[in-house]
């Protein structure tokens, strides 16, 4: 089970989150060519390895988080808010050896 260290709520199980897919795609401006929209909507890098993706903490603080996760090992390299917040994040202790997130 993935445990994601929400910058607000702390370490929480996957079941509290709703996955929201690839976070590298940016919604094009209204006047961009249609190819930009089809690319945004349908096409995915889908890497085997590090993937930057959204997890929505629906069962907690309801923040969209940007998570860097390895799609092969499921290891999580980093977690941050999608929308930057000025408020203090969760006491960020240095991750101890063996802690995955």
């Amino acid at each position, binding site marked *: *089970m*993935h*445990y994601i260290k929400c910058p607000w709520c702390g370490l929480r*199980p996957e079941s509290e989150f*709703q996955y*929201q897919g690839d*976070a590298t795609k940016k*919604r094009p*401006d*209204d006047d*961009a060519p*249609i190819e930009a*929209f*089809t690319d*945004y*909507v*349908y096409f995915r890098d889908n890497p085997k390895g590090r993937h930057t993706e*959204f997890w*929505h903490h*629906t069962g907690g603080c*309801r*923040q*969209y988080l940007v998570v860097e996760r390895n799609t092969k090992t*499921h290891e*999580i390299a980093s977690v941050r*808010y*999608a*929308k*930057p917040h000025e408020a203090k994040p969760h006491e960020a202790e240095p991750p*101890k*050896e*063996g*802690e*995955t*997130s």
Partner: protein
Amino acid sequence: MSAQGSYRLGAGGAIDRAASVAFKFDGKALTGCKGDTLASALLANNVRLIGRSFKYHRPRGVMALGSMEPNGLVEVREGARREPNIPATTVELFDGLVAQSQNRFPSLRYDLMAVNQLASPFLSAGFYYKTFMWPASFWESVYEKAIRKAAGLGRAAGDPDPDGYDHVHMHTDVLVVGAGPTGLSAADAALSAGARVLVVDENAHVGGALAYEREDIDGAPASAFVDAATQRIDSHDNGDVLTRTTALGVYDHNLVVALERVSDHELTPGAGKPRQRLRLIRAKQIVLAAGALERPLTFANNDKPGVMLSSAVRGYVNRYAVAPGRRIAIVTTNDDGYRTARDLIDQNVEVSLIADARDHASAVSSEIEGRGVPVLRNTLPQKVLGGVETEGLALQTKDGAPVADHRCDTVAVAGGFNPCVHLTSHLGAAPYWREDLLAFVPDIDDKSLQTAGACRGVYDTRACLDDGAAAGVEAARRVGCDVVSRSKSSTVALDAANVFEGPGDGKKSFVDFQNDVTAADVRLSAQEGYEAVEHLKRYTTLGMATDQGKTSNINGLAVLAAARNVPIDVVGTTRFRPPYTPAAIGAYAGHHRGKEFQPIRRTAFHRCHEEESAVFVEAGQWLRPRFYPQGNEDVFAALKREAAAVRTSVGVCDVSTLGKIEIFGPDAAALLNKVYINAWSKLAVGKARYGVMLRDDGYMFDDGTTSRLAEDHFFLTCTTANAARVLAHLEHTSQVLYPDYDVNFVSATEQWCGLALAGPKSRALLADIVDGFDVSNENLPFMGIAETTIGGAPARIFRISFSGELAYEINVPWGWADHLWRKLRAAGEAYDLTPYGSEALAVLRIEKGHIAGPEIDGRTMASDAGLGGMMSKKKDFIGKRMALHRAETSGERPSLVGVKPVNTSERLRGGAHLVASREDGLKDSLGWVSSVTDSPNVGSWIGLGFLKGGMEQNGRTIYASYPLKDEFVEVELCNPCFVDPEGERLRG
């Protein structure tokens, strides 16, 4: 001779002889004692034949101790609690236990299906892939039926499981799996270093292998160490030892799922207790101290009742004071056979012979030989002799010289050890072969998982203690405790012969006992090219039984390696998967079953509806009134009466389940502009507007009415089904797409409960209940809103209509629901106020041509639903470009139409296809009918649907084809709005 079994020894054991336990096996009443397993009690009673094998129906008995048992499977308990395929070695004996043998007909001793053995030359691995192909239709009707009936061992209970299960979330610094010497030592060390520690062990007892041995630690019996360590850990605030708890699987990020068998050692669970409890353990560090399992040897008839593992024979004698036989021969490749011999002799059980595959003596072998046991070196077992049970043993020297047959009733087999690497492999790591240990050992160098003790090939108890302590200290250090690392024990080469199989063709030499896979099957598999180890497994089913190859895998690999003529490490292992031992599906489901499958959500008016005898229906997790039967009305009568009341007087309907979201902030209107296809900036305070949302790909997502309560405060409503998704969508838009927007949301679905008051008399009724508010058309026009009070209750009143009638939606805070309902019912008497449910609501909205779930099914574009005109050209909104693009490229799309049968007595059905003629096939289908109702207002069935060409075809007749019921109805295409198309009623 003991009353608790004729094979019970006079002394010793960890059983409570004073406490007799009565149980039944195959209908026969027997007695064991407290502390027995079903297996030990059966052996004590000289019941050695306890089941029949899978394919050949060969007689089988107990072979092992604990959860590794491949052979001794029985059905336990009765009725709805019956469980198939349970190893008798894992069943703790309790008073009233009922067990039965399985897979036999008519009886265990005389099983007719044993004729399969005669056919065995033709039932070799994979035989079914090569036959049963002719004639084609015979597979399901004849062959498969027979195969299915023959397959499977036990029977499932026919009835729902009556017992409960629950789940518990646990967190710990260090989880230790296995409470043997290694595990206890690891836990002890980690705990003293300051870590939070949890130990789990699958057995009812602690001590692991030591519980079956007569061994000393530091000059005292091992049990003294075990008890003291357990006591130390368990009594510590930060320590816990859980027995009867199996670590089933290791999942990502150090989640270990463990199963505690809370009540399985009792007849029924105690009050308030679950039968089993799943423990979801999130451990920062895991120490696997799971021990090693002894493996058998492969030789003919090695599956007969009476053939047992050497360590098991010893364990039955030591722990249960049961002699597995009267005259026991031992075949061994290492010193373990001699340890067994020693404990047997000490208990005065005859050891008739030891056949050792090694050519040399060892300290313990000399000791045993010195005590008068005949030892044959360089000797391999060839065949077990006997009928149903073991009567003797045929042997050969390693170079093939014959040895005289030996008479015995039991054969103890010691083939070496397989470290319990299973859990290390759940996340994908493969073990590697150690020639010095003749074993696969874990190759895991994980920052959060360590193995220790016998589980990594350290077999000496003293070394296990040290190894455990080192692992415990290391785990504590990794979670931040201030400790000094200790060094791990080194493994010592096993003095063992490199032998896995005895001489012979292997046709009756079983590798996988439970699945009846022989050495010959393995060789055939290799011969036919199924030589990758995973092919071997799938072609022969090796290792696929309930024991998942705990006894069979390595021996199978050895035969395969020999057949392929490669070293065993080239062959490799198959992958272990969770669970470590089979675990009840009910336990995984936990509390979630039956009605509790998903939580039930009730509206504020739930009790009011109950008082009105509503029939409820599920709407997602919500319960909503479906209709309110009067007398013995059925659903059709009730919905017609309810719908008619709305059209003629006034009805009331609970609409609380609609999603409601308060939106605050200066950018609230800008946000709505992004998510809705229509424009919001100019909506006046105090007004409501209908809006449609699209997905990114341009299809319709949701619709609803949103009101402006203040310049920077909106109140959005959305469909019941999409409520959660819409909130997430708004959050996505504001946090991800447009993080600069200054907006806030709060879900208000349960703050406000809502009733729709609909019908020509709704205004009059409303006027009667509001606290002096002017509800005239001028003051509260269509799409107007009012914030007022009703009998003191704060109320928001929205002049909106789903039914097409003059209608209002009244929202009051949840706690005022009863109050509002009663007030309406009292005042409503004068107007014949009728509560209506979701069925009547559907009638009304279909009559009005309002789209709902069946129309907005994720494949509909706004333009398909006749809402294309709402799309603002002036602004950007989500889905805009894709919708416009698709409209250009995807040709003629079906769009919304109304349909009614030409012959008004005919019935329409949702899901019918619209076709031009009876001959038309799927490719010619022009559209479909999405919603239908028997309209009281129109006087016939009517429907909404989607049709290529849409409303341009108004007036044309085509056919609604429903071949599932052989129905073919001529229908006229018409305006989807069947009632008041000009909208005079709702605006009046």
